[in-house]
């Protein structure tokens, strides 16, 4: 099933059939149920999904941040050829913060309120550079703050998180993540808590830094606008599984999965007919304990079983499209390719942000 970029050997990050499950009183939560993708250095992958899609659990699995005693992880997570999923804790700790770094959604809760920003950045630096002196650490912290566009970094380095605005806190977190020149950066909803003008600045910053350091970047978000700005490739997740995968052009401009259609046609846009009703996806995101049988999306899908397909019985496989010129574009849906293209042209291309 390895096709093109989807599972490219030699890519910096390769995730193969990742499964993450938690045992709870109410049953087994299948948070991630068979994820395969890869990211090269200098490339950005956008993982799109709503709550309960499994996207954050995926990022934590890549960072080795799950509690092994309570989490069942299967599959491979290869970072530069080494399997993080199978690595013991002390080895992962050496990778984390150095080769792989993460920035979180809400900088106010992710930063320690009692320590200065400088101290927190220096800590991240010194853990991986044990011989470094205090002066060196401080110099590096100021350098990073400057690099992420914080004015007066020599003063700001001694301030506390609460003295920074939301946008600046996020920049500080980016500085902390990049202080050791990581090869892979995972950004989990980096701009959700920020205003739109600040969001634009932060996305630009991530783009610039990626170009400068040739970092592989994964951006996890529910916001299609954010994805369209920064992602080279897009993975759409639903109920812990892959619904669609391809380049940003393929997934956002020529989407093939009814869930992706639903997302595009339900998001209001600044263009097009404002009086036209949005086309929401009916129903609610599924429980990950009782995932619907067959295709997890079928209870909410307008086109379920339209083709006579086994949507309610059989889990659709993630398969490449056969159209020439559309290589590397994968969809997990029982509808025939032909049928999907017709539906898209008729129903979707006129509504919401798909216009």
């Amino acid at each position: 099933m390895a096709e093109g970029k989807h599972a490219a050997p030699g890519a910096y990050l390769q995730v193969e059939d990742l499964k993450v499950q938690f045992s709870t009183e109410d049953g087994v939560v299948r948070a991630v149920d068979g994820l395969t993708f890869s990211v090269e250095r200098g490339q950005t992958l956008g993982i799109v999904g709503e709550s309960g899609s499994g996207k954050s659990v995926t990022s934590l699995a890549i960072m080795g941040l799950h509690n092994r005693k309570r989490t069942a992880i299967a599959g491979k997570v290869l970072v530069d050829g080494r399997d993080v999923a199978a690595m013991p804790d002390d080895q992962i700790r050496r990778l984390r913060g150095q080769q792989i770094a993460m920035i979180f959604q809400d900088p106010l809760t992710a930063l320690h309120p009692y320590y200065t920003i400088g101290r927190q950045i220096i800590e991240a630096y010194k853990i991986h550079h044990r011989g470094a002196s205090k002066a060196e650490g401080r110099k590096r912290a100021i350098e990073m703050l400057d690099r992420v566009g914080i004015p007066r970094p020599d003063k700001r380095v001694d301030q506390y998180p609460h003295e920074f605005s939301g946008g600046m806190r996020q920049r500080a977190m980016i500085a902390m993540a990049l202080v050791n020149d990581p090869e892979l950066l995972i950004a989990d909803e980096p701009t959700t808590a920020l205003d739109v003008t600040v969001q634009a600045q932060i996305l630009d910053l991530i783009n610039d830094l990626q170009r400068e350091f040739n970092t592989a970047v994964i951006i996890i978000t529910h916001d299609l606008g954010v994805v369209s700005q920064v992602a080279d490739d897009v993975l759409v997740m639903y109920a812990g599984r892959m619904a669609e995968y391809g380049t940003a052009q393929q997934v956002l401009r020529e989407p093939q999965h009814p869930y992706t259609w639903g997302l595009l046609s339900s998001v209001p846009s600044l263009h097009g007919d404002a009086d036209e009703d949005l086309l929401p996806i009916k129903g609610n995101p599924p429980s990950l304990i009782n995932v619907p049988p067959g295709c997890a999306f079928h209870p909410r899908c307008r086109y379920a079983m339209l083709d006579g397909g086994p949507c309610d019985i059989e889990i659709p496989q993630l398969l490449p499209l056969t159209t020439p010129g559309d290589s590397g574009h994968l969809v997990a849906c029982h509808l025939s390719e032909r049928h999907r293209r017709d539906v898209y042209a008729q129903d979707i291309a006129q509504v919401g942000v798909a216009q």
Partner: protein
Amino acid sequence: MSDLVTVPQQAAGPERTSSAPLLQVEGLTKHFPVRSGLFGARQLVRAVDGIDFDVAPGETLGLVGESGCGKTTTGRMLVRLLEPTAGKITFEGRDITHASVTSLRAMRQDLQIIFQDPYSSLNPRHTVGKIVAMPMTVNGINPPGGVIKRVQELLEIVGLNPEHYNRYPHEFSGGQRQRIGIARALAVRPKLIVADEPVSALDVSIQAQVINLLRDLQREFGLAFVFIAHDLAVVRHFCQRIAVMYLGKIVEMGSREQIYDRPSHPYTRALLSAVPDVTKLGAATGRIRLEGDVPTPISPPSGCRFRTRCWKAQEKCAQEEPLLQISPNGSRSACHFPEVGALR
């Protein structure tokens, strides 16, 4: 008394309506005193610093802006959850700015609020039925057919199962809880609803459901709305007129077409161009990049508050505060050098 009154939808009209406005706000101000440090000097956070606007019956006014612009504070003052520091709020011709709690009670039937967070705005110890009935209970209203019947009617109107009135909030999803909040706001047939970020806390696919619902209700019951949001695309979908706020002031006010197609104020232009366009992949070219962050509302810049981030700022902007006036593009804009022509 018929339950469903269909009112023809308000046409997107001129700035000021000829009929008496339902809600009128003049010079509305809210300052919060803060102390820097234990013995520090007292300072004022000028959260809302003198704003004026009207809302006609059945009209939807959007209040947009980024964090700290004062839009949420404004919403709370309208329903008197916060006391204005200065200014006047007139509702249906009556000055309610400093009205007592008892006289407010009657007004509160006509002026309701929907909150942002569906998880904290419903009492977890009350059944849904009790929550939705509360505005009637508190006001001593007994609708024809009884309270329970009205509650069931309301649940149905918002797309929930009327049989579920004995359930508790935790048994519902976020989107469903928001619908409960909407049902509660509709209970006593208000004339105007203040909706404070009603969909921001919801998943994308659920947002669309709730937006469509609010639109249907607005049309069906002829409700006026003050719709507060930071998401410009959502506001465009719902509001006929929009007021853009920045640091406690309204910097531009106009019809939907004026604001989205031909914005006059540089800040409005910057705000619109910062919204990512899914149809344009990759970093947007021609985007206005605003430098820095919003200044502190404790000591806003002199003259025009936006001048520290405005690419057109000149000396006049620091010396003289621009007032809201009709701009060449048609909207009212507070700028000495308003933009002319269509966006892009």
